Protein backbone atom coordinates (compact mmCIF):
# COMPACT_ATOMS: atom_id res chain seq x y z
CA UNK A 1 0.00 0.00 0.00
CA UNK A 2 2.80 2.38 1.01
CA UNK A 3 4.64 1.59 -2.25
CA UNK A 4 1.51 2.42 -4.28
CA UNK A 5 1.09 5.71 -2.49
CA UNK A 6 4.73 6.60 -3.28
CA UNK A 7 4.23 5.73 -6.98
CA UNK A 8 1.04 7.77 -7.02
CA UNK A 9 2.78 10.75 -5.42
CA UNK A 10 5.65 10.55 -7.94
CA UNK A 11 3.16 10.33 -10.79
CA UNK A 12 1.43 13.48 -9.56
CA UNK A 13 4.78 15.27 -9.31
CA UNK A 14 5.69 14.36 -12.93
CA UNK A 15 2.30 15.59 -14.03
CA UNK A 16 2.82 18.84 -12.18
CA UNK A 17 6.28 19.12 -13.73
CA UNK A 18 4.73 18.70 -17.18
CA UNK A 19 2.55 21.75 -16.61
CA UNK A 20 5.59 23.82 -15.66
CA UNK A 21 5.98 24.68 -19.37
CA UNK A 22 3.61 27.53 -18.64
CA UNK A 23 0.29 26.71 -20.26
CA UNK A 24 -2.43 28.54 -18.42
CA UNK A 25 -5.90 26.99 -18.49
CA UNK A 26 -8.85 29.30 -19.11
CA UNK A 27 -12.43 28.43 -18.28
CA UNK A 28 -13.65 28.46 -21.90
CA UNK A 29 -13.25 32.22 -22.17
CA UNK A 30 -14.91 33.82 -25.20
CA UNK A 31 -12.27 34.72 -27.76
CA UNK A 32 -11.79 38.31 -28.90
CA UNK A 33 -12.46 39.05 -32.56
CA UNK A 34 -9.78 38.18 -35.08
CA UNK A 35 -9.91 40.33 -38.19
CA UNK A 36 -6.87 39.92 -40.39
CA UNK A 37 -5.78 39.19 -43.93
CA UNK A 38 -3.57 36.42 -45.17
CA UNK A 39 -0.58 37.08 -47.41
CA UNK A 40 -2.82 37.00 -50.49
CA UNK A 41 -5.09 39.67 -49.01
CA UNK A 42 -7.97 37.30 -48.19
CA UNK A 43 -9.84 38.44 -45.06
CA UNK A 44 -9.93 35.87 -42.25
CA UNK A 45 -11.85 35.66 -38.99
CA UNK A 46 -12.15 32.94 -36.36
CA UNK A 47 -15.37 31.83 -38.06
CA UNK A 48 -13.14 30.54 -40.88
CA UNK A 49 -11.87 27.85 -38.48
CA UNK A 50 -15.06 27.03 -36.52
CA UNK A 51 -15.46 23.31 -35.80
CA UNK A 52 -11.72 22.78 -35.44
CA UNK A 53 -9.24 23.08 -32.62
CA UNK A 54 -7.12 26.18 -33.36
CA UNK A 55 -3.57 26.98 -32.33
CA UNK A 56 -3.42 30.77 -32.69
CA UNK A 57 0.14 32.03 -32.43
CA UNK A 58 1.23 35.70 -32.29
CA UNK A 59 4.78 36.16 -33.53
CA UNK A 60 7.16 38.50 -35.35
CA UNK A 61 10.08 37.85 -37.68
CA UNK A 62 12.48 39.86 -35.47
CA UNK A 63 11.72 37.74 -32.39
CA UNK A 64 14.24 34.88 -31.87
CA UNK A 65 12.05 32.73 -29.55
CA UNK A 66 9.20 32.99 -32.10
CA UNK A 67 11.44 31.70 -34.88
CA UNK A 68 12.78 28.94 -32.63
CA UNK A 69 9.33 27.38 -32.16
CA UNK A 70 8.20 27.74 -35.80
CA UNK A 71 9.75 24.44 -37.02
CA UNK A 72 7.90 22.55 -34.25
CA UNK A 73 4.63 24.14 -35.40
CA UNK A 74 5.33 22.94 -38.94
CA UNK A 75 6.12 19.42 -37.63
CA UNK A 76 2.85 19.51 -35.68
CA UNK A 77 0.97 20.43 -38.88
CA UNK A 78 2.50 17.47 -40.68
CA UNK A 79 1.87 15.12 -37.77
CA UNK A 80 -1.80 16.20 -37.55
CA UNK A 81 -2.51 16.15 -41.30
CA UNK A 82 -6.15 15.19 -41.94
CA UNK A 83 -7.23 15.91 -38.37
CA UNK A 84 -9.35 18.92 -37.32
CA UNK A 85 -6.53 21.12 -36.10
CA UNK A 86 -5.76 24.50 -37.65
CA UNK A 87 -2.52 26.30 -36.95
CA UNK A 88 -2.75 30.04 -37.56
CA UNK A 89 0.20 32.38 -37.08
CA UNK A 90 -0.58 36.09 -36.74
CA UNK A 91 2.39 38.29 -37.46
CA UNK A 92 2.32 41.23 -35.06
CA UNK A 93 2.86 44.75 -36.41
CA UNK A 94 5.09 44.04 -39.40
CA UNK A 95 4.74 44.57 -43.12
CA UNK A 96 4.05 41.81 -45.66
CA UNK A 97 7.55 42.39 -47.05
CA UNK A 98 9.15 41.66 -43.68
CA UNK A 99 7.09 38.49 -43.28
CA UNK A 100 7.85 37.34 -46.83
CA UNK A 101 11.56 37.88 -46.27
CA UNK A 102 11.39 35.36 -43.42
CA UNK A 103 9.16 32.93 -45.32
CA UNK A 104 11.64 32.86 -48.21
CA UNK A 105 14.04 31.14 -45.78
CA UNK A 106 11.49 28.97 -43.93
CA UNK A 107 8.83 26.97 -45.73
CA UNK A 108 5.68 26.83 -43.60
CA UNK A 109 2.49 25.04 -44.59
CA UNK A 110 0.10 26.77 -42.20
CA UNK A 111 -1.58 30.13 -42.83
CA UNK A 112 0.16 33.34 -41.84
CA UNK A 113 -2.07 36.34 -41.14
CA UNK A 114 -0.95 39.94 -41.10
CA UNK A 115 -1.65 42.43 -38.32
CA UNK A 116 0.31 45.43 -39.63
CA UNK A 117 -1.29 48.01 -37.31
CA UNK A 118 -1.25 45.71 -34.28
CA UNK A 119 -5.03 45.95 -33.85
CA UNK A 120 -5.44 42.19 -33.29
CA UNK A 121 -2.40 42.20 -31.00
CA UNK A 122 -4.14 44.83 -28.87
CA UNK A 123 -7.55 43.14 -29.00
CA UNK A 124 -6.06 39.84 -27.79
CA UNK A 125 -3.98 41.74 -25.19
CA UNK A 126 -0.69 40.28 -26.33
CA UNK A 127 2.18 41.93 -24.42
CA UNK A 128 5.01 39.53 -25.23
CA UNK A 129 6.00 37.46 -28.24
CA UNK A 130 5.41 34.67 -28.88
CA UNK A 131 2.02 34.32 -27.20
CA UNK A 132 -0.21 31.40 -28.20
CA UNK A 133 -3.85 30.54 -27.62
CA UNK A 134 -5.49 27.14 -27.93
CA UNK A 135 -9.12 27.49 -28.96
CA UNK A 136 -11.75 24.78 -28.95
CA UNK A 137 -14.13 23.95 -31.79
CA UNK A 138 -16.59 26.58 -30.53
CA UNK A 139 -13.93 29.27 -30.77
CA UNK A 140 -13.41 29.61 -27.02
CA UNK A 141 -9.98 30.16 -25.48
CA UNK A 142 -8.98 27.12 -23.42
CA UNK A 143 -5.23 27.58 -22.89
CA UNK A 144 -2.76 30.46 -23.10
CA UNK A 145 1.01 30.23 -23.37
CA UNK A 146 3.41 33.16 -23.15
CA UNK A 147 6.81 32.20 -24.55
CA UNK A 148 7.97 29.46 -26.89
CA UNK A 149 7.51 25.69 -26.71
CA UNK A 150 8.02 22.56 -28.79
CA UNK A 151 4.54 22.14 -30.22
CA UNK A 152 4.88 18.60 -31.55
CA UNK A 153 5.73 16.99 -28.23
CA UNK A 154 5.21 17.00 -24.46
CA UNK A 155 2.54 19.07 -22.78
CA UNK A 156 1.62 21.07 -25.90
CA UNK A 157 0.84 17.92 -27.87
CA UNK A 158 -1.02 16.39 -24.92
CA UNK A 159 -3.25 19.44 -24.57
CA UNK A 160 -4.02 19.51 -28.28
CA UNK A 161 -4.80 15.78 -28.27
CA UNK A 162 -7.08 16.22 -25.26
CA UNK A 163 -8.96 19.02 -27.05
CA UNK A 164 -9.27 16.92 -30.21
CA UNK A 165 -10.64 14.06 -28.10
CA UNK A 166 -13.51 16.33 -26.98
CA UNK A 167 -14.74 16.71 -30.56
CA UNK A 168 -17.71 14.67 -31.84
CA UNK A 169 -16.60 11.32 -33.33
CA UNK A 170 -17.20 12.32 -36.98
CA UNK A 171 -15.01 15.43 -36.59
CA UNK A 172 -11.94 13.60 -35.20
Amino acid sequence: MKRWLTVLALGLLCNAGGHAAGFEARASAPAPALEAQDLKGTPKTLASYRGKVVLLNFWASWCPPCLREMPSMERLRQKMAGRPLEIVAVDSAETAAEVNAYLSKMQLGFPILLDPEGSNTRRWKVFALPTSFLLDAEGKVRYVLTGPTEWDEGEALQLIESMLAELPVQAK
Partner: protein
Amino acid sequence: MMLFRILLLSLWACAFGARADLPDYQTFPARGDQLLLWVTSERGRAEPEVQAAENLARQGVEVWSLDLVNAYFLPQLPSSMDRVPQQDLTDWMRTAVASGKQVTVYAVARAAAPVLRAAAELEPALRERLCLLLMYPNLYTVAEPLAEPDYLDLGSLSGLRVKVLQPRRSAATPWLPGLMDHMAQFGASVAYEILENLREGYWARETPTEFEVAESRRMDAMLIRELSSGGCK
Protein backbone atom coordinates in the same frame (compact mmCIF):
# COMPACT_ATOMS: atom_id res chain seq x y z
CA MET B 1 28.41 56.81 31.07
CA MET B 2 25.18 58.58 30.11
CA LEU B 3 27.19 60.92 27.88
CA PHE B 4 28.78 57.90 26.16
CA ARG B 5 25.34 56.41 25.51
CA ILE B 6 24.12 59.68 23.99
CA LEU B 7 27.23 59.80 21.81
CA LEU B 8 26.60 56.23 20.60
CA LEU B 9 22.96 57.03 19.93
CA SER B 10 23.94 60.11 17.91
CA LEU B 11 26.42 58.07 15.85
CA TRP B 12 23.72 55.48 15.15
CA ALA B 13 21.26 58.21 14.13
CA CYS B 14 23.87 59.76 11.82
CA ALA B 15 24.56 56.38 10.22
CA PHE B 16 20.83 55.95 9.59
CA GLY B 17 20.56 59.44 8.14
CA ALA B 18 23.41 58.64 5.74
CA ARG B 19 21.13 56.02 4.07
CA ALA B 20 19.83 58.80 1.86
CA ASP B 21 23.28 59.02 0.23
CA LEU B 22 23.63 59.52 -3.46
CA PRO B 23 23.83 56.24 -5.36
CA ASP B 24 27.22 55.05 -6.59
CA TYR B 25 27.54 56.31 -10.16
CA GLN B 26 30.27 56.64 -12.79
CA THR B 27 31.11 60.11 -14.10
CA PHE B 28 32.28 61.13 -17.56
CA PRO B 29 33.19 64.79 -16.99
CA ALA B 30 32.89 67.43 -19.69
CA ARG B 31 32.95 71.23 -19.80
CA GLY B 32 29.76 71.79 -21.81
CA ASP B 33 26.52 73.01 -20.28
CA GLN B 34 24.64 69.72 -20.80
CA LEU B 35 24.48 66.98 -18.20
CA LEU B 36 23.03 63.57 -19.04
CA LEU B 37 21.99 61.33 -16.14
CA TRP B 38 22.10 57.88 -17.74
CA VAL B 39 20.25 55.17 -15.79
CA THR B 40 20.88 51.77 -17.36
CA SER B 41 18.28 49.00 -17.54
CA GLU B 42 17.71 46.16 -15.09
CA ARG B 43 20.28 44.19 -17.10
CA GLY B 44 23.05 46.49 -15.95
CA ARG B 45 25.55 48.65 -17.83
CA ALA B 46 26.74 47.29 -21.20
CA GLU B 47 30.05 48.13 -22.85
CA PRO B 48 28.49 50.06 -25.79
CA GLU B 49 26.78 52.29 -23.22
CA VAL B 50 30.16 53.08 -21.61
CA GLN B 51 31.64 53.88 -25.03
CA ALA B 52 28.69 56.12 -25.87
CA ALA B 53 29.11 57.95 -22.55
CA GLU B 54 32.83 58.48 -23.28
CA ASN B 55 32.00 59.79 -26.74
CA LEU B 56 29.39 62.16 -25.33
CA ALA B 57 31.90 63.54 -22.84
CA ARG B 58 34.39 64.12 -25.70
CA GLN B 59 31.70 66.16 -27.39
CA GLY B 60 31.13 68.30 -24.32
CA VAL B 61 28.15 66.48 -22.75
CA GLU B 62 28.89 65.41 -19.18
CA VAL B 63 27.46 62.00 -18.27
CA TRP B 64 26.70 60.51 -14.89
CA SER B 65 26.05 56.83 -15.49
CA LEU B 66 24.09 54.89 -12.91
CA ASP B 67 23.80 51.10 -12.96
CA LEU B 68 21.07 50.48 -10.38
CA VAL B 69 21.53 46.70 -10.09
CA ASN B 70 25.24 47.18 -9.43
CA ALA B 71 24.81 50.19 -7.13
CA TYR B 72 22.29 48.42 -4.88
CA PHE B 73 23.46 44.79 -5.33
CA LEU B 74 20.16 43.77 -6.91
CA PRO B 75 19.39 40.79 -9.16
CA GLN B 76 19.17 41.60 -12.87
CA LEU B 77 15.37 41.54 -12.94
CA PRO B 78 12.71 44.13 -13.81
CA SER B 79 11.26 43.74 -10.29
CA SER B 80 14.59 44.90 -8.84
CA MET B 81 13.89 48.38 -10.18
CA ASP B 82 10.91 48.62 -7.83
CA ARG B 83 13.27 48.10 -4.86
CA VAL B 84 15.53 51.08 -5.58
CA PRO B 85 15.45 53.71 -2.78
CA GLN B 86 13.65 56.56 -4.51
CA GLN B 87 14.94 59.23 -2.17
CA ASP B 88 18.49 58.50 -3.37
CA LEU B 89 17.43 59.07 -6.96
CA THR B 90 15.56 62.26 -6.10
CA ASP B 91 18.64 63.58 -4.27
CA TRP B 92 20.80 62.58 -7.23
CA MET B 93 18.59 64.57 -9.63
CA ARG B 94 18.58 67.53 -7.23
CA THR B 95 22.38 67.47 -7.10
CA ALA B 96 22.51 67.35 -10.90
CA VAL B 97 20.21 70.37 -11.26
CA ALA B 98 22.29 72.23 -8.65
CA SER B 99 25.31 71.88 -10.96
CA GLY B 100 23.77 74.64 -13.06
CA LYS B 101 23.90 72.51 -16.20
CA GLN B 102 20.94 71.63 -18.35
CA VAL B 103 19.92 68.21 -17.06
CA THR B 104 18.37 65.38 -19.07
CA VAL B 105 17.66 62.00 -17.50
CA TYR B 106 17.91 59.02 -19.82
CA ALA B 107 16.46 55.79 -18.40
CA VAL B 108 16.16 52.38 -20.03
CA ALA B 109 13.38 49.77 -19.70
CA ARG B 110 12.11 49.22 -16.14
CA ALA B 111 14.58 51.80 -14.77
CA ALA B 112 12.05 54.35 -16.05
CA ALA B 113 9.80 53.46 -13.12
CA PRO B 114 12.03 54.63 -10.22
CA VAL B 115 13.22 57.58 -12.31
CA LEU B 116 9.67 58.83 -12.93
CA ARG B 117 8.73 58.31 -9.30
CA ALA B 118 11.85 60.16 -8.16
CA ALA B 119 11.03 63.03 -10.53
CA ALA B 120 7.54 63.15 -9.00
CA GLU B 121 9.15 63.76 -5.59
CA LEU B 122 11.02 66.85 -6.81
CA GLU B 123 9.77 70.35 -6.13
CA PRO B 124 7.65 71.50 -9.13
CA ALA B 125 10.14 74.24 -10.06
CA LEU B 126 12.98 71.69 -10.24
CA ARG B 127 10.86 69.16 -12.13
CA GLU B 128 10.11 71.77 -14.81
CA ARG B 129 13.84 72.14 -15.44
CA LEU B 130 14.25 68.42 -16.15
CA CYS B 131 13.71 66.49 -19.31
CA LEU B 132 13.32 62.70 -19.36
CA LEU B 133 14.28 60.46 -22.25
CA LEU B 134 12.84 57.00 -21.72
CA MET B 135 14.03 54.11 -23.90
CA TYR B 136 11.18 51.54 -24.19
CA PRO B 137 9.92 52.24 -20.65
CA ASN B 138 8.21 49.36 -18.88
CA LEU B 139 5.60 50.75 -16.50
CA TYR B 140 3.30 47.74 -16.23
CA THR B 141 2.11 46.34 -12.93
CA VAL B 142 0.16 43.60 -14.73
CA ALA B 143 0.28 42.65 -18.39
CA GLU B 144 -1.47 39.31 -18.92
CA PRO B 145 -2.89 37.99 -22.20
CA LEU B 146 -6.62 38.69 -22.71
CA ALA B 147 -6.69 41.24 -19.86
CA GLU B 148 -6.41 45.02 -19.85
CA PRO B 149 -2.92 46.20 -18.87
CA ASP B 150 -2.42 47.89 -15.54
CA TYR B 151 0.26 50.54 -15.04
CA LEU B 152 2.24 51.83 -12.05
CA ASP B 153 1.11 54.78 -10.00
CA LEU B 154 3.72 57.47 -10.71
CA GLY B 155 2.83 60.47 -8.58
CA SER B 156 2.57 64.05 -9.87
CA LEU B 157 4.54 64.63 -13.06
CA SER B 158 3.18 68.09 -13.79
CA GLY B 159 5.66 70.25 -15.66
CA LEU B 160 7.87 67.29 -16.55
CA ARG B 161 8.86 66.82 -20.19
CA VAL B 162 9.06 63.16 -21.21
CA LYS B 163 10.11 61.75 -24.55
CA VAL B 164 9.87 58.03 -25.23
CA LEU B 165 12.26 56.34 -27.63
CA GLN B 166 10.53 53.17 -28.80
CA PRO B 167 12.28 50.56 -30.97
CA ARG B 168 9.81 49.49 -33.67
CA ARG B 169 10.66 45.80 -33.24
CA SER B 170 9.20 45.39 -29.79
CA ALA B 171 6.05 43.73 -28.45
CA ALA B 172 5.45 46.97 -26.56
CA THR B 173 5.16 49.13 -29.70
CA PRO B 174 1.43 48.46 -30.30
CA TRP B 175 0.84 49.49 -26.68
CA LEU B 176 2.67 52.81 -26.90
CA PRO B 177 -0.48 55.01 -27.10
CA GLY B 178 -1.76 53.59 -23.78
CA LEU B 179 1.61 54.17 -22.13
CA MET B 180 1.75 57.77 -23.35
CA ASP B 181 -1.80 58.41 -22.09
CA HIS B 182 -0.83 56.96 -18.71
CA MET B 183 2.11 59.34 -18.23
CA ALA B 184 0.04 62.27 -19.51
CA GLN B 185 -2.65 61.47 -16.90
CA PHE B 186 -0.06 62.19 -14.21
CA GLY B 187 0.64 65.62 -15.73
CA ALA B 188 3.72 64.94 -17.88
CA SER B 189 4.13 66.58 -21.25
CA VAL B 190 4.76 63.57 -23.49
CA ALA B 191 6.15 62.85 -26.94
CA TYR B 192 7.62 59.79 -28.62
CA GLU B 193 9.79 58.68 -31.48
CA ILE B 194 9.83 55.26 -33.13
CA LEU B 195 13.32 53.87 -33.75
CA GLU B 196 12.97 51.94 -37.00
CA ASN B 197 14.55 48.50 -37.55
CA LEU B 198 15.71 48.22 -33.94
CA ARG B 199 14.84 45.86 -31.09
CA GLU B 200 14.81 46.50 -27.36
CA GLY B 201 18.35 46.53 -25.94
CA TYR B 202 19.81 46.51 -29.46
CA TRP B 203 23.25 47.51 -28.13
CA ALA B 204 23.54 44.32 -26.03
CA ARG B 205 21.88 41.63 -28.18
CA GLU B 206 23.41 38.16 -28.48
CA THR B 207 22.76 38.05 -32.21
CA PRO B 208 22.48 41.66 -33.35
CA THR B 209 21.72 42.62 -36.94
CA GLU B 210 24.32 44.66 -38.83
CA PHE B 211 22.07 47.69 -38.47
CA GLU B 212 21.82 47.18 -34.70
CA VAL B 213 25.61 46.99 -34.41
CA ALA B 214 25.96 50.18 -36.42
CA GLU B 215 23.30 51.95 -34.33
CA SER B 216 25.00 50.85 -31.10
CA ARG B 217 28.11 52.67 -32.30
CA ARG B 218 26.00 55.72 -33.12
CA MET B 219 24.24 55.83 -29.76
CA ASP B 220 26.08 59.02 -28.76
CA ALA B 221 24.93 60.75 -31.96
CA MET B 222 21.34 59.66 -31.32
CA LEU B 223 21.45 61.09 -27.79
CA ILE B 224 23.09 64.35 -28.92
CA ARG B 225 20.29 64.70 -31.46
CA GLU B 226 17.70 64.21 -28.72
CA LEU B 227 19.43 66.64 -26.35
CA SER B 228 19.59 69.38 -28.95
CA SER B 229 16.18 68.97 -30.51
CA GLY B 230 12.59 69.52 -29.45
CA GLY B 231 11.52 68.70 -25.91
CA CYS B 232 14.90 68.40 -24.24
CA LYS B 233 16.57 71.59 -25.47
